[in-house]
């Protein structure tokens, strides 16, 4: 029978200290469907997946899984008590994560059977079975081939084949396409459609809207840990989906004219920075970019649309493969961050923990780091000078820290972010890139940082601002560059800077 429900999650709740990660979320999966789970960062997608796969234990609600009987007439469900990934697997739930969790130095067959064969392995039998599965699913690999020698897409498929072979009825694909090129994505979709015909229920988590509309049957949208709704794909055009994800109705037209006191930008002058056909190795399409003195502009788009990759290319953080960059009309070559810094560019990175803070070093060392590097290896600041600069910015940005000697890792997220901001303000850049400067920090600090961006612009500096929150972008930016699927798809200024217009451009495809 087609489309019987295989999985019901009812009233799922999950709390973390201080956060309700999931509140009363329902989710239903039918056999033979591809079901997209959508939502912005922090919406609760990954928490829901982790509850389902036993990585987290739920704090409330029930998970019902269809009994594995051939008697289709009786839709009887039993409650699944999932407390560990092993429980989930035994209940027929398999997951393929974004990062492939297989062993690249083992053969394809070994990867398919690893951890399943007990103490003894019948190698011939294992290779034979693997061969059959690969053929059945039309995966271009041989059992004895080393997994690492396959392309990422094929490795992804082997991971899926492994999951499917373990008699799963629910397959979770968590961002499987983020590291694949277009042809590889096509191959993966073909495999997903084949599995669909075999009555497997697939949960598909992705940030790519085009892909959702290409393969999915249904969409469940989460926002801020709550269920927004479940929709059949035909009933939910892209623009509606984006507005559901962002929590802003299209008709909800509010005042978007920012409270900024930034004057109009003089576009007759030479841009502070002008990039032409810039492209890096991070998988973005070549893009053009410019910014003028006193301007705040921004990159907008959904997560994974290539916003960060663009600014990283400008700063030389990723390997630049082509394009030209002019700073104040002069041609420059920015191959690594220090080149950008010497041209008066500062970059506050998106991932504060991974790319921003140097956790064990003191607040003082973290503040002076960039300026110190620019000054040179053989010219360290005296301790007194470093302390004076650190104290000045601790006071200026109201950084809450026990002392300037405290390791930055012990500060709260918002204060860490202020330290990184102080680091770049100290270098007195002409052009400051702020990549998600307000993510995960409290509302008060958020507004301080937004005001700071506008203040810098009113002083004649240029700021590029990236944020997942459209409101924040509209409040701060006078020009928005819109990205979708790693490509610049539009630029909005003036009267076009409305929520509706931005969301429609982000969604692309049809217009309402």
């Amino acid at each position, binding site marked *: 029978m087609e489309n019987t429900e295989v999985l019901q999650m009812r009233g799922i709740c999950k709390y973390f200290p201080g956060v309700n990660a999931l509140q009363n979320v329902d989710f239903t999966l039918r056999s033979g469907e591809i079901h997209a789970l959508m939502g912005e960062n922090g919406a609760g997608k990954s928490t829901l997946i982790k509850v389902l796969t036993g990585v987290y234990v739920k704090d409330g609600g029930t998970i019902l899984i269809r009994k594995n009987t051939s008697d289709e007439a009786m839709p009887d469900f039993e409650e699944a008590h999932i407390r560990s990934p092993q429980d989930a697997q035994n209940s027929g739930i398999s997951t393929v994560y974004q990062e492939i969790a297989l062993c690249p130095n083992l053969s394809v067959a070994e990867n398919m059977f690893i951890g399943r064969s007990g103490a003894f392995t019948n190698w011939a039998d294992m290779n034979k079975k693997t061969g059959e599965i690969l053929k059945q699913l039309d995966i271009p690999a041989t059992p004895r081939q080393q997994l690492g020698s396959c392309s990422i897409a094929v490795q992804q498929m082997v991971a899926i084949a492994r999951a499917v072979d373990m008699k799963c009825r629910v397959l979770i694909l968590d961002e499987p396409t983020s590291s694949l090129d277009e042809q590889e994505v096509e191959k993966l979709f073909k495999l997903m459609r084949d599995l669909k015909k075999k009555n497997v229920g697939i949960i598909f988590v992705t940030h790519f809207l085009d892909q959702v509309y290409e393969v999915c049957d249904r969409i469940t949208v989460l926002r801020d840990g709550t269920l927004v709704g479940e929709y059949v794909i035909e009933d939910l055009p892209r623009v509606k989906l984006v507005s559901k994800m962002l929590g802003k109705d299209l008709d909800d037209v509010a005042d978007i004219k920012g409270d900024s006191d930034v004057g109009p930008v003089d576009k007759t002058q030479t841009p502070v920075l002008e990039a032409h056909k810039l492209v890096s190795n991070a998988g973005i399409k070549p893009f053009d970019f410019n910014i003028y003195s006193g301007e705040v502009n921004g990159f907008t788009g959904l997560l994974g649309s290539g916003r960060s990759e663009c600014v990283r290319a400008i700063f030389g953080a990723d390997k630049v493969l082509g394009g030209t960059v002019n700073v104040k009309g002069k041609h420059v070559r920015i191959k690594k961050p220090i080149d950008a810094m010497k041209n008066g560019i500062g970059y506050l*990175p998106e991932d504060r923990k991974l790319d921003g*803070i140097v956790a064990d070093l003191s607040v003082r060392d973290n503040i002076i780091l960039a300026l110190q590097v620019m000054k040179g290896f053989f010219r360290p600041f005296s301790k007194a000078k470093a302390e004076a600069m650190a104290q000045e910015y601790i006071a200026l940005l109201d950084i809450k820290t026990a002392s300037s000697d405290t390791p930055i890792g012990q500060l709260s997220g918002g204060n860490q972010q202020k330290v990184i901001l102080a680091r770049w303000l100290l270098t007195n850049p002409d052009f400051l890139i702020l990549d998600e400067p307000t993510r995960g920090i409290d509302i008060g600090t958020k507004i301080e940082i937004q005001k700071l961006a506008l203040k810098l612009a009113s002083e004649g500096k240029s700021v590029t601002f990236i944020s997942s929150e459209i409101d924040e972008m509209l409040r701060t930016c006078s020009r928005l560059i819109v990205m979708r699927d790693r490509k610049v798809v539009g630029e909005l200024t003036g009267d076009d800077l409305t929520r509706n217009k931005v969301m429609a451009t982000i969604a692309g495809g049809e217009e309402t």
Partner: protein
Amino acid sequence: MTPANSLKKKNSIVSQFVALTQKQLFIPVAALLCLIIFNLIADPSFFAIKLGHNSDGQPILSGYLITILDYGSELAILAIGMTLVTAASGGQDISVGAAIAIAGSVILKVLCGDNSRPDHMQAPIIVAFLVACVVAMLFGAFNGSLVAFFKIQPMVATLILFTAGRSIAAWINNNELPIIAEPEFSYFGTFIPGIPIPTPVFIAVACMIVIFLVLKFTNLGLYSQAVGINPNSSRLNGINPAVVKLITYVILGLCVAVVGLIKVSRISTINYSVIAKDIEMDAILAVALGGNSLGGGKFNMPASIMGAYIIQFLTTTLYKFNVLSSALPAYKAVVVIILVILSAPVVRERLASFKKSRSAKNSVKEVA
């Protein structure tokens, strides 16, 4: 004084003591105190220093403490380089013993030329030393580039030179054992006439002053720690992590050359298979004993140097009690296990939580 007051005072002493155990220098200082107390009880003559004369009639100081200062100096010089390598690359160079053999061999080769038993040195000692510095720094750069550019784990990368080093050292002198007859050459490893303190002590002090000045007047400390803690962030702040790692290995090469000079000077010849044997382990232990994380990041240079002298203190103590040299490593291992466990973050956290529960208990008591 009321009983309550004395109780309070006792508790504050306890909590102060526990707080003291959290300091990085606590482990090395405590280890040193233990060793001193043990020797005081077992045989106070351990601390005796005698002023005597050597066969040439020159005044020299002798005694176990002098031995510790003498041989500990070699370790301290190595610990300086090893600390930097550990901080920046999050791993250790295990080839220093083999590299010392190479450096020593190069010095003898330059001094002896083609004749392995020359009547006079064929070149000034300073030239021989500078050549050895260049060679040792090149080998350091080799290790460093494997680690920095090819991203090979430090222990694996330096395993190559660890294995090949002593053969290379022997090959440099065609497997002969050159002997320098002139006494001036032995000054670096023994005594300068008229000065009763072993020369290696002065060399070590000079090295310490140099590294102190380097850390003060360059950003070596900041860069190597930043790279060791977060290479991504360092790169985005304009540092080239690979170059910083490479530099630390080259600096360790320089330390190796200095120790090579001391080693061959002590005996005016070389034994390729024995010279500086297992010294890399002692150098790494010195860094660990100083309370520095072997996983890289923050470091404390004085603590490492102190660690080096403590290791030598331990070795000398064991020799004093006639432990067979073949059994020495086993005894050392026991002590090292204790020290390393005590300085492990897990144990330190336990101690910290012990302190917390203790102070919590005290406050309850006071309320009662």
